């Protein structure tokens, strides 16, 4: 099975390399004159005020949370889906039960208003 992964192990670094070449080239070809005003962080015409580390809405975290749970769910369901053809009805229903339990979680988040973008 490892030889199947050889191609992926080759194409990923190759793609990374090929995409780095133009960047390196433009560093070579392009001008390199730096001054503090140019290197300063982009703002709408005024100096940057405060830290870069603005604080973020907790909403981002809640979306990430729901995503994590559903991602794990999908990972559990993939083997189930592969085996689906050979499964008895009760086994399919178990998979559906799995989905429904998590759908309850989504419903909870929805009802409690956590899916609203405040």
């Amino acid at each position, binding site marked *: 099975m490892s030889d199947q992964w050889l191609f992926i192990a080759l194409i990923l670094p190759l793609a990374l390399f090929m995409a780095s070449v133009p960047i390196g080239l433009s560093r070579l070809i392009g001008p390199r004159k730096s001054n503090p005003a140019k290197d300063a962080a982009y703002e709408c015409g005024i100096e940057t005020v405060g830290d870069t580390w603005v604080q973020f809405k*907790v909403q981002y*975290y809640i979306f990430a*949370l729901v995503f*994590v*749970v559903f*991602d*794990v769910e999908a*990972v*559990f369901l993939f083997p189930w889906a592969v085996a689906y053809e050979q499964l008895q009805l009760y086994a399919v229903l178990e998979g559906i039960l799995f989905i429904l339990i998590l759908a309850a979680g989504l419903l909870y988040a929805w009802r409690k208003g956590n899916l609203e973008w405040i």
Partner: protein
Amino acid sequence: MIPLSWYLILAAALFCIGLYGVLGRRNAVAILMGIELMLNAVNINLVAFWRYLTPALIAGQAFAIIVFAVAASEAAVGLALIISIYRQRSTVIAEEIDLMKW
């Protein structure tokens, strides 16, 4: 071929590094990262034992998947706890969260 012991040594090393992270770091998020390292070490062991000792049974892989689910739940709840504590006490330094210490 790669002997089983290599995997086990690597897993042991990762586990111990994670253990250091859990015991030695001050930041609660860093402690959680240590826990993730430890869980990964466990997973390496599970999969290595499955491959070398009982490849006919799927138990090792099934276990590993359950560990993934546990790791995800643990990270979600742990990080939510950290956010909640941070909101109330403005700190994520584990030593300073000592409300229930005495």
